[in-house]
């Protein structure tokens, strides 16, 4: 195998992984702060794709920008959904019992979103026609698809912004406090319930933005989430529950593993490589790559 071929595999994997990474951060935030398994995460991504499509086709806004502009409306939607539905079954007491209820609650949400979208917007696939989806940057012997490269860098920037938000701003720190130890946080005067709402809002805003970036090269239809949802969850757990950088690395890792698996396995078994790698990592590090070890007695 020539070095440039190998590099091409690595680069391809990273570019794919970048968008997985952004998709996963939102989920990780929601997981980390609320302990919610959001079944509907992929469907919010799909809605983000549709909104970006609307921006592009009706308002003429380039999807790379449009993706960013999905963030404010989705943040608000997230706050509202949390307040009306999720708050009813979370933030109460026993996290074990709560997870059960949230699973089904978000599952119900997912069904409503996909089916309503199919009925209202029709199942006909749509796409944003960008010139850069079929063009590549030639970097030496390597070919980097332009759309994916732009999406990768945007994803990186957004992830960095989230990181700064969480570590430098007061709101971000309050979020992390609420994630780490809700009881202690409430003693500090942090409104944990409100923090849950913020986390949910930011979480789905991020995945909507990821959808917008994805829409620069991927067609849009109501059931698109099904192609990504499992990978999202795998990335978050691989990175370590509750760790945002972990989820990002997890997403990149999955993209990389998917690509490099082709060096050893036939194309049909590509995702087997991902799942096997996932299991191996967890067996060696049960808390995921960046997760915190469970407390001892």
């Amino acid at each position, binding site marked *: 195998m020539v070095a440039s071929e190998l590099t091409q595999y690595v680069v391809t994997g990273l570019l794919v992984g970048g968008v997985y990474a952004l998709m996963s951060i939102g989920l990780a935030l929601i997981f980390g702060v609320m302990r919610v398994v959001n079944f509907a995460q992929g469907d919010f991504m799909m809605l983000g794709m549709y909104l970006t499509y609307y921006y592009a086709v009706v308002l003429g806004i380039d999807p790379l920008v449009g993706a960013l502009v999905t963030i404010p409306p989705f943040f608000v939607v997230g706050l509202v959904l949390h307040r009306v539905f999720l708050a009813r079954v979370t933030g109460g007491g026993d996290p074990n019992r709560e997870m059960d209820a949230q699973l089904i609650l978000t599952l119900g949400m997912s069904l409503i979103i996909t089916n309503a979208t199919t009925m209202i917007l029709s199942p006909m696939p*749509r*796409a944003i026609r960008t010139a850069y989806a079929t063009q590549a940057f030639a970097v030496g012997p390597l070919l980097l*698809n332009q759309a994916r490269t732009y999406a990768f860098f945007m994803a990186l920037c957004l992830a960095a912004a989230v990181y700064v938000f969480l570590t430098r701003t007061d709101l971000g720190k309050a979020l992390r406090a609420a994630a780490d130890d809700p009881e202690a946080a409430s003693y500090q005067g942090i409104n944990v319930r409100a923090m849950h709402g913020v986390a949910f809002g930011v979480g789905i805003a991020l995945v909507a933005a990821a959808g917008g970036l994805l829409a620069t*090269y991927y067609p849009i239809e109501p*059931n698109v989430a099904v192609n990504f949802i499992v990978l999202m969850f795998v990335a978050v757990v691989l990175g370590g529950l509750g760790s945002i950088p972990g989820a990002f690395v997890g997403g990149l890792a999955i993209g990389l593993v*998917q690509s490099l698996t082709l060096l050893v396995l036939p194309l049909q078994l590509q995702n087997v490589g991902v799942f096997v790698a996932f299991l191996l990592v967890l067996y060696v590090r049960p808390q995921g790559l960046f997760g915190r070890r469970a407390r001892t007695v």
Partner: protein
Amino acid sequence: MSLLSRAVTLALALLLALPVVGPPPAVAVDDVKIALVVPLSGRWARQGQLKKMGAEMAIDEINAQGGIKALGGAKIVLREADAGDSVEKAVSAAQRVLTREKISAGIGSWLSSFTLGVTEVAERQQVPWLTLSYADNITERGFKYTFQTSPVSSAQAEQALDLVVELAKRNNQPIRKAALIGDNTAATVFFFKPLREKLLQAKGIELVVDEVWTPPLPDATSIVQKLRATQPDVVFYGATNFPDSIQVLQKVKEFGVKTHIQGVGAWLVTPEYVKTVGKELLDNIQAVVAAHPLKGQEELVKKFVQRTGEPFMTQDPLCSYAHVWLIKEAAEQAKSADPKAIRDALAKIDLTTGPAASTLSPGRIRFDERGRRIGAVPLIVQWQNGEPFTVVPVNLATRPVVWHK
């Protein structure tokens, strides 16, 4: 519970009490009912809706012309059932629609796994069933009530290869190297198998790329990279999952790969392709299909386009259109709406006239004892300037074929 939560819960509960969305339309007792079990919601809703459009058009035509004459002008009524997105739901839909009323015949279900399950139900309920699915295994089970109007995948492979080789030779660009790229769905697998195992070799063609993936495909780079490196003369292409296919085609353009793409199946010639990748990219790509508008069907296509707003007509609505007409002919010959009688009529039918026969190339409808259409041949369809046209066989073509590399 806060007031807001209470209100929301009440709204949800009311939504639950929405069971009857209008009463079902009034049906005369002696109407002939045809079941249509296709995905109408979920991942494959688009395909199911296209099939429904074709069936509805045929039914309107037939009823407008006076219905089934042998049954005193009985009208045809469509009973659609949503196959959803799982085999369980598809089989439930079939079971539901076949036990609720007396169904004379049925059509469906697009996805070959759904068709396999649905035809089992039809076989047990003894209701004749028509399908456009290509997979060989559908008519290899010894069933008496299943009728497959499309040529089977393995036969298509042989015929398509002959046609392509012929075309290439006539244009002085003989085929020496071939590529097989596609997913592992049944029809594609059945098509590629004979090519891979004997047909290509028999023609002295070297198989240079053989890449099969499990949908969804994360990235097409490795596949198209191989195409670029080996420069095959023809690529047999079976990406039935729309996003996968788009990724491959975009990558082909991105890498500047120049080759002849021969799609396997009608999924490649739908309007959404034009909207997604544009007509330049699609130009000259061909597909092997079971049915496509033929010379002489211009009126039909115009009517369809006007009715539905679709930019053109493709295999799915065309086949269900033909199937409905075929059932009508069978009912006329059987002089009965009884499913067993219709089945017997279909088994011995020999139809050369009428919309059904003119749709299903080469214009004669007869079934063998397995339920396969005797003499069924595939068509080759080509994208030209943003619309797919039948190019082979030449006598039924609506446009001449364009060949370039």
